[in-house]
């Protein structure tokens, strides 16, 4: 077979073009990852110096004084996220079971679609919603309302992850249990959900990590508090809101603490993400 010079030139042009495009995609990946390293690098260099014992144990000090810490905000974040998990996970897992068990039904398809759509609506809208149904008519800004807002954000995430994990359980396991005469509902709980439980748990942890970093829905639900919050019906501080208020303040010492708070917050969130992915060898992911 003879290849004309023109043909050869054209072929090498095609090869060069292909290599160029491959190079561009690799370049895009590098460019996309640069911010990750810069953000983490700045967090460490600007925040690490201020993350000390005081930061974890002391309360915020009034404007003008130097020092103090974010003890109440750290505890507040755990309290808010813990409560949200208590409310959101049972609903999410239950809904996920329903979707998986009734996969073909029209209603299940509608609910699955609604959950997917809900994942994409702006989280600040959830804050407005909870403000309207809960904060304004009842107790004012409170821990409980902040946790409800976070729970609402968690529910669709947990639902979709739980559904997908349950669908991974082999059909044969269900059939085996049914063949032994186990009622269907017990099969679902003791065989299907139990087999899927570790997958569901990783999904829950990823959802928790997601809401732990939320600021917008807390602004007018949990609000913020410079002191300890002693009841569920009082406003409460959280790391995210505290970092936000300190960051936009004009005081150098507050800005310094904002970096420290951001470092601690990111460490908590990434520890959950990395931990889960390491345990599951990278297969875990939250629905998006």
């Amino acid at each position, binding site marked *: 077979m003879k290849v004309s010079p023109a043909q050869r030139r054209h072929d090498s042009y095609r090869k060069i*073009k*292909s290599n160029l*495009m491959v190079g561009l*995609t*690799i370049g*895009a*990946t590098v460019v*996309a*990852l640069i911010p*990750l390293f*810069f953000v983490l690098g700045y*967090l460490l260099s*600007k925040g690490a110096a201020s993350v000390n014992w005081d930061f974890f144990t002391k309360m915020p000090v009034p404007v003008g004084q130097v020092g103090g810490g974010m003890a109440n905000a750290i505890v507040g974040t755990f309290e808010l996220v813990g409560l949200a998990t208590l409310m959101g996970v049972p*609903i999410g897992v*239950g*809904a996920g079971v*329903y*979707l998986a*068990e*009734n996969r*073909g039904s029209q209603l299940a398809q509608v*609910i699955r679609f*609604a959950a*997917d*759509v*809900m*994942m*994409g*609506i*702006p989280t*600040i*809208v*959830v804050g*407005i*919603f909870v403000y*309207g*149904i809960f904060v304004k008519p009842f107790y004012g800004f409170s821990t409980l309302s902040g946790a409800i807002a976070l729970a609402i954000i968690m*529910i*669709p995430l947990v*639902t979709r992850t739980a559904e997908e994990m349950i669908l991974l359980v082999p059909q044969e396991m269900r*059939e085996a249990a*049914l063949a032994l005469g186990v*009622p*269907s*509902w017990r099969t679902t709980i003791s065989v299907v959900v139990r087999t899927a439980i570790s997958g569901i748990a990783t999904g829950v942890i990823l959802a928790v990590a*997601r809401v*732990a*970093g939320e*600021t917008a829905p807390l602004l*007018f639900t949990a609000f913020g508090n410079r002191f300890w919050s002693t009841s569920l019906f009082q406003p409460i501080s959280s790391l*995210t809101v505290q*970092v*936000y208020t300190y*960051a*936009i303040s004009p005081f150098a010492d507050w800005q310094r603490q*904002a970096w420290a708070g951001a470092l601690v*917050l990111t460490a908590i969130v*990434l520890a959950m993400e990395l931990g889960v992915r390491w345990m599951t060898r990278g297969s875990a*992911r939250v629905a*998006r």
Partner: protein
Amino acid sequence: MADLAETVTERVAVPRTITRSRGFGVRSAGDRIFNLSTLALALVILALLFGLTLQLFTHALPSIRAFGFRFLISTDWDPSNDVYGAAPFIYGTAVSSFLALLIAVPLALGVALCLSEMAPAWLGRKLGFLVELLAAIPSVVYGLWGVFVLGPWLRDHVDPILAKYLGFLPFFQGPHISVSMFTAAVVLAIMVLPYISAVCTDVFRVVPQTQREAAFALGATKWEMVRMAVLPFGISGVIGAVILGLGRALGETIAVAMVIGNRPEISASLFMPSTTLASVIANEFVEATSDLNLAALVELGLILLVLGLILNIAARTLVYSATQRHFHKDKR
């Protein structure tokens, strides 16, 4: 041989919902109770979605009644006179999101192609994990970084270059300010990129291997294979991913509120501070001076919600059809 295997699996395939098939006898009371209680929990999702929309609508009614359609086009936002118009916020949201997508989409497509087509599987997984970490960083952290690091850097190093070469355009004229529409767009681009690329990667991964092999068998180069086999197959999914990213960009609140400067005026220059629907809600909601002020802010939230709903419904439909095409094929 393959055909035989397919027929066999088809014959022994058991419907997923074996418990529901009528042939296996009546469902017990326990089953019914269990199914109803999980149904109740699943209905919570529908209730929340409807409740959200309804609640925001009723809460925004005073503002809707007072200003009507004018609300969307008026540029007056004046709490002291109780007059409100959403135009500056709608403009800010639209422009910042559009710019963010302009930066993020080509990069995200490159990342997705690199992860699914170019990189070896082990490397693709590792890089994909790093890209997902970008999505895991809380938005307040991006905001903090944007205010103190990225904004000043863009002002000192990127704004002058843009002004020098594109300064004839009105977008790149005027003073350089670190909290600006441009900074917000770059921060947004960084934040939505991992979402878009993750969905695109998923879409590209379901392109049947046979399509790629067919392209290679015709003598296609790697890029030609992508053009011939991967992109046409994934195009609707890619569009869905972009819309999904747009939805994220519209609704992103805290990071934008921190870097955009919050100035409710429309200015052509991207180097000037601006504001968005979400950021003005974050800034002013708690300090609303009157009921009408609050209603106007809720109406801004309603606009965000409606936009979010429309975009997400459209995007999900597209992504569903893109990722399930192969699914149907497998089932056949």
